[in-house]
């Protein structure tokens, strides 16, 4: 039995004997990705249960078991963890690390030690963020956006949360930088940019956003800290500053950040759809270039978060137009995916189910986004449950669902085991149904005027909150069950084999399962497109020892 990356590793410092230290010091991209996954999903469940706590509180009008201040801290904790600790590192940190170098035939990322350092920077940020729960006057109660001037005046522990967000931002920048150089430098010979798998395109576009947008929010948070410590009045209107400037600087990053979340997710979709349709992807170049153009246009639409902040009307109209515009490349991708499935030999395995489910949920999330991009409609819907439902359909029903899709797709690659398809499908249906029951009523409640972040509500909204609660219970049960199924499979599952999905991209042509320490036994020469299928079968075949084509 040959050794896999679980058996041996390279370390940042020295050659420690203990397995534990080998994991702590590892510079192997696959191990680092796995560690990211472990930490991220732990925090994911913390935030999920914070959300459940809020749902319980909202089960009936009036106070149930927590007070309003605790509720404010709860939604801030939920937002900070979900955004900064979970979804922004998200797919790039896990699958970008594990799969991207395999897809381009590289031995590792360009700067493996930097990758190790970045991981620990991320952990440091997590520790600071979470420790502010117990240090000082409790966790921040500002919402994850830290809007000035409230964030400057509240007595809670905003500064620590800001520091944490800054450090997590730096980790994000360094990850992006590492991936950019990796994709530019370490592609296997012959693999031009238009021969890269589309997931790599997604990671590439994402890395640019990480690099270009994050520094701005980083320095904004620093300025807010300076303001809070020294009272220099940068964002405080009572001292001659302008809080709207904070909003601008914040959203210059944080809006591109939502594309930073979704682009690698679209990449996963573009991997799964052709493999499970056994058909070459439709419009490869349009998908690749639409990733790039979403990254570009996404950079200039941040103003749509500020429609109600007193921005000039002409600016509102321009931002509104640009926001419609960014929906175009997204639409192109949707048509491409659907066209890929047309006349394909569709295999309804679990990853494909997740991908198809996402086409529905993300379409709802995306289209409701277009409605609130309209200035007039947004005045009515701003800060209502409609917006909440919109971004949960887009981020949870888009990004996280595709993260789960990727998790099921690459599970056999990473662990070498296969899960029970039946159980995984049951988990999917629980998630999908629970998700829709949970979030869809919020569109209606929000449209009728239920404001977000309120701890109490009028009796007429009770029915929507009760339905949501039922959905939440189904959804959370589904989530727990899904992880249970996967963990069971990892421990006791059957061996998956080298290429269980009959996939074509390079990560499925490993000499062992799970992959060995330095990936492919030889670097292949790439003279083929990433998704070549003929009559429902993969075209390209390799001799896995020499990595020469044998088809």
């Amino acid at each position, binding site marked *: 039995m040959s050794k896999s990356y679980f058996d041996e590793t390279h370390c940042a410092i020295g050659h420690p004997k203990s397995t534990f230290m080998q994991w702590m010091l590892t510079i192997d991209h696959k191990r680092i990705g796995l560690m990211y996954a472990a930490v991220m999903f732990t925090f994911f469940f913390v935030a999920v249960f914070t959300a459940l706590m809020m749902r319980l509180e909202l089960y009936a009008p009036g106070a149930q078991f927590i007070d309003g201040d605790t509720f404010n801290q709860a939604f801030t904790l939920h937002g900070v963890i979900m955004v900064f600790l979970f979804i922004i590192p998200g797919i790039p940190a896990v699958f970008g690390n594990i799969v991207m170098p395999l897809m381009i035939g590289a031995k590792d990322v360009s700067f493996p030690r930097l990758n190790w350092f970045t991981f620990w920077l991320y952990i440091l940020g997590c520790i600071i963020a979470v420790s502010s729960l117990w240090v000082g006057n409790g966790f921040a109660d500002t919402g994850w956006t830290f809007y000035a001037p409230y964030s400057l005046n509240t007595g809670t522990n905003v500064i620590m949360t800001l520091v944490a967000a800054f450090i997590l931002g730096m980790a994000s920048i360094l990850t992006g930088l590492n991936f950019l*150089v990796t994709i*530019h430098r370490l592609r296997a010979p012959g693999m031009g940019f238009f021969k890269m798998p589309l997931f790599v395109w997604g990671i590439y576009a994402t890395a640019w956003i990480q690099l270009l947008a994050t520094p701005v929010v980083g*320095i904004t948070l620093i300025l807010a800290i300076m*303001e809070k410590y020294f009272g220099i009045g940068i964002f405080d209107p009572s001292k001659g500053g302008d809080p709207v400037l904070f909003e601008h600087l914040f959203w210059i990053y944080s809006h591109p950040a939502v594309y930073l979340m979704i682009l690698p997710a679209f990449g996963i979709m573009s991997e799964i759809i052709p493999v499970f349709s056994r058909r070459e992807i439709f419009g490869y170049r349009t998908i690749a270039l639409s990733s790039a153009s979403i990254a570009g246009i996404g950079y200039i639409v941040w103003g749509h978060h500020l429609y109600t902040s007193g921005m000039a009307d002409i600016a509102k109209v321009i931002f509104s137009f640009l926001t419609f515009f960014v929906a175009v490349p997204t639409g192109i991708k949707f048509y491409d995916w659907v066209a890929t499935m047309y006349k394909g030999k569709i295999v309804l395995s679990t990853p494909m189910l997740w991908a198809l489910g996402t086409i529905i949920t993300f379409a709802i999330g995306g289209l409701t986004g277009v409605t609130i991009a309209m200035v007039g409609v947004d005045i009515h819907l701003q800060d209502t449950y409609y917006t909440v439902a919109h971004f949960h359909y887009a981020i949870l029903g888009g990004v996280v669902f595709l993260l789960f899709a990727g998790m099921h797709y690459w599970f056999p690659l990473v662990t070498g085991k296969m899960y029970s398809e039946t159980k995984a499908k049951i988990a999917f249906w629980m998630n999908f149904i629970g998700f829709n029951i949970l979030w869809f009523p919020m569109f209606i409640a929000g449209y009728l005027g239920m404001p977000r972040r309120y701890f109490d509500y009028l009796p007429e909204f009770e029915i929507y909150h009760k339905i949501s609660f039922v959905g939440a219970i189904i959804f959370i049960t589904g989530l727990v069950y899904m992880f249970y199924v996967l963990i069971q499979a990892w421990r006791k599952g059957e061996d998956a084999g080298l290429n269980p999905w009959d996939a074509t991209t390079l990560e499925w042509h490993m000499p062992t399962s799970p992959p060995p320490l330095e990936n492919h036994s030889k670097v292949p020469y790439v003279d083929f497109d990433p998704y070549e299928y003929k009559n429902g079968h993969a075209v390209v075949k390799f001799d896995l020892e020499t990595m020469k084509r044998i088809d």
Partner: protein
Amino acid sequence: MSHEYVPEIAVDREGQEHEVQGWQDDMYGAKLGFWLFMFTEVLMFGAMFMALTYYFTLHHDDFLIASSSLNRVLGGTNTVVLLFSALTMGLGLLKMRHGDVKGAKLMIWATILLALVFLGIKAVEWTAEYNHGVFLGLDALQAGNEHSKPFGQILFFGMYFTMTGIHGFHIIIGIGIMLWLLKRINAGKVTPEHHILHFNIALYWDLVHLIWVFVFPYYYMIGAGLTGGAH
């Protein structure tokens, strides 16, 4: 990597050989990575300059008055010192490229010395400002007491200390990595053939001085036209 890195060869179907770029020994990749990192620094300072420009339009006169009270002699001297340090850094890199390791080390030491002079002058400047009661956290830069300066001036000085502080922090980091560079040169890890670390540190230093070239006019010079300048 102590042992020599040998790149792998990939063979295509015609039997032609292609050298594989590994992550080891990738000078171009290291340069690219560092340029990208420099880009993030530009964006970080760029955001602060943008905020500053915006507040300059809001509090035009206050900014000019506050600026005129800064010490242009010390600030100007520091500009010259930093420009010279950029020169020594560049010369050091040239010497390294041409195989003159000893000369390169000398130039790095000169850069460190100039950086320390810069920090020394900065310290004198900040001390004088502190003694005038103008410093972060002092009454003059807090709203709502009898010593308070007008809002615009508080903002100006607040941004001034923030930005020159962050810039000074970069100088300190720079000194640290230059000392580390010297250690690597002495250990034989940075050689004329393998001087990417030297290259990147020189790049960093260029950016640090370049930022100062923008900081100096924006803080010290905009109020130069008013009377009551250097004191």
